[in-house]
């Protein structure tokens, strides 16, 4: 940190983190070419019904590793109004969350859930759904052995022509994919696949969402036969309001850089004559600390070999005795 009196009247200070941990946290949150998985912020508004609070709690449980849940009421958050997003953006900045789920309940909009995404910690798009026919995960009874583990990568399935034809459902499909996807991984452990989210467009304005555990059954081929058992919360989502992303913002957000970050390979050189060269570092040999060989009597090679020979002779000798007898 240095205080420098620049030519301007305002003094600027350079602030750098004092600890390595702080530096790593800042670097993790910085904009990167290949991004981390999006974290979800779950909060609720002035009034929530029992349905909404259990939906939010169960959503938090499903997304345990990558979600943050706030338990207090937030009266000044109104996602669809122009001034009501400032708190949301502040929370998003502080917790580094790019998706939020805001639950509320009012007479006009009972059991309301607003799913929204952020770009650069500003609201990108919103979609408001109403919850109907909610069944909590506690109400499903199943064999506990097939219960999905926390943080496992899920299968996501969409059925229905509505998801292709209706704009709002298209947006909902994208938001749900983003919400349930988790981290983008390169290597996947096939034994760790134990959950699936099924979304069906029942009508152009209603989606049935359920969470199932996967049972792998033996089939003739390498590919096992899949059986789904409903375990988790299931609910009907009725589309209410929504806000599409700004076209310009959408174009910017969808931009991706084609090049992969160059991974620095250390200790490898390319030589024109010799080809690929590598460097090997050998640690300093401390002659005083080399472990000496075990010279105890019983362990010596001659002794061991002698013993083996003796056993063989004895064995054959005993055989001879037996034969002779």
């Amino acid at each position, binding site marked *: 940190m*240095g*205080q*420098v009196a*620049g030519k301007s009247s*305002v003094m*600027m200070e*350079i602030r*750098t983190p004092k600890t390595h941990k702080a*530096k790593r946290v*800042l*670097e993790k949150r*910085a904009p*990167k070419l290949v*991004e*981390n998985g999006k974290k979800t912020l779950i909060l609720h508004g002035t009034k929530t019904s029992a349905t909404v609070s259990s939906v939010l709690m169960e959503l938090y449980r499903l997304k345990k590793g990558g979600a943050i849940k706030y338990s207090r009421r937030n009266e000044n958050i109104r996602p669809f109004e*122009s*001034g009501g997003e*400032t708190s949301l953006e502040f929370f998003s900045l502080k917790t580094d969350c*790019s998706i939020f789920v805001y639950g509320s309940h009012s007479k006009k909009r009972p059991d309301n859930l607003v799913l929204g*995404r952020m*770009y*650069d*910690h500003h609201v990108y798009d919103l979609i408001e759904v109403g919850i109907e026919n909610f069944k909590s995960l506690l109400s499903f009874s199943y064999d506990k052995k097939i219960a999905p583990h926390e943080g496992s990568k899920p*299968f*996501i*399935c*969409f*059925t*229905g022509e509505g*998801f*292709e034809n209706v704009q709002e459902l298209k947006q909902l499909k*994208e938001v749900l*994919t*983003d919400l349930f*996807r988790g981290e*983008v991984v*390169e*290597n*996947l*452990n*096939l*034994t760790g696949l134990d959950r699936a989210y*099924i979304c*069906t467009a*029942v009508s152009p304005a209603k989606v049935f969402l*359920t969470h*199932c555990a*996967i049972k792998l059954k033996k089939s003739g081929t*390498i*590919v*096992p*036969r*899949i059986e*789904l058992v*409903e375990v988790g919360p299931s609910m009907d989502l009725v589309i209410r309001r929504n806000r599409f*992303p700004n076209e310009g913002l959408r174009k*910017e*957000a*969808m931009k991706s*850089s084609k090049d992969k970050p160059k991974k620095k390979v250390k200790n490898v050189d390319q030589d024109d004559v010799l080809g690929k060269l590598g460097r090997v570092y050998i640690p300093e040999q401390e002659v005083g600390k080399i472990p000496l060989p075990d010279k105890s009597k019983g362990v010596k090679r001659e002794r061991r070999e002698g013993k083996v020979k003796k056993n063989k002779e004895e064995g054959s000798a005993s055989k001879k005795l037996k034969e002779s007898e």
Partner: protein
Amino acid sequence: MDTEMDQIYQIDVGNLLAFNPNHRFSSAPSSREELVKECVTEGTKLVQAIADTLFNFPSTESVDGPLVQLPPPTTKLPREKHLPRPKPPTKWEEFALKKGIQKRKKDKIVYDETTDKFKRRHGYDRVKDDNDIPIIEAKASDEPGEDPFAKRLDDKKKRVDKQQQNRLQNLKSAAKAGALPSHVQLAASALPITGTKAQPKKLGKEELGDVAGLAATSTASGGKFDKKLPGEKPTKKQGKHHRYLPVVPRYGWVDEEKEQTNKVLGKLLSKHSHEILNVGKAINMYNDKKEKKKSGRSDKLKPKKDITKKKPYANKAK
């Protein structure tokens, strides 16, 4: 996007995502359970389709189980943050580019000629340490009364300060282009304390609100119709909060003014009116008032009389 034999599903293996755009529900699903069952069966088909491709990938064995390399996801989802912006070149980098100066790597161990040994460049027992110089030869350009050792240290300090300033300017131009390195923050600090100038006190959230409210009342309509910024709270009402009773009572409603006077009269003329007055408290209040009038000012401001102090000629008069 893969195509399957029977039905055309849109599969994105990288995301473990499958979409069946062709399913049409039989016009009226008989009950909710039937609907749920149908949805789950459709879901099973989709998951099976993904698993078909997934399990046919070449797998490597590991401690936890068979590992499979997933292809990159095909569905495009919006980014979380903007792409990292390129940093503008620093002043030195521009100069080096212009002059064609190449970067040269410095060795950690340097040969020290004075002691004929290899010493490290930085740190303990380093080459060219400022504290270890025994002799500085005088030059013709040196002034007679100047300490060359102090001058060396002074020059170094100036160089360091200049470098700090350059660094700040570079960071400022990077911040302008939106490419400030992630671990650095530029903060406007308080003005330095120069002589008798006191540091301006930082205003808190509520104080700012109060000041804004004060400024608003100076407008023609008393700040009532001012445009508020997003997230700004409405002005607090200053002063006493009066509730004025209506002069003419509303039709069908109770006459509140009449009620008020009746209440007071009732209390005074009731059987227990003598019990309303707390006589002890009234006497105390009266006495206090009288004493205050006598003294002329509050007891707290009076210097306390020290009773242990003896008055020198108090007894002599007697």
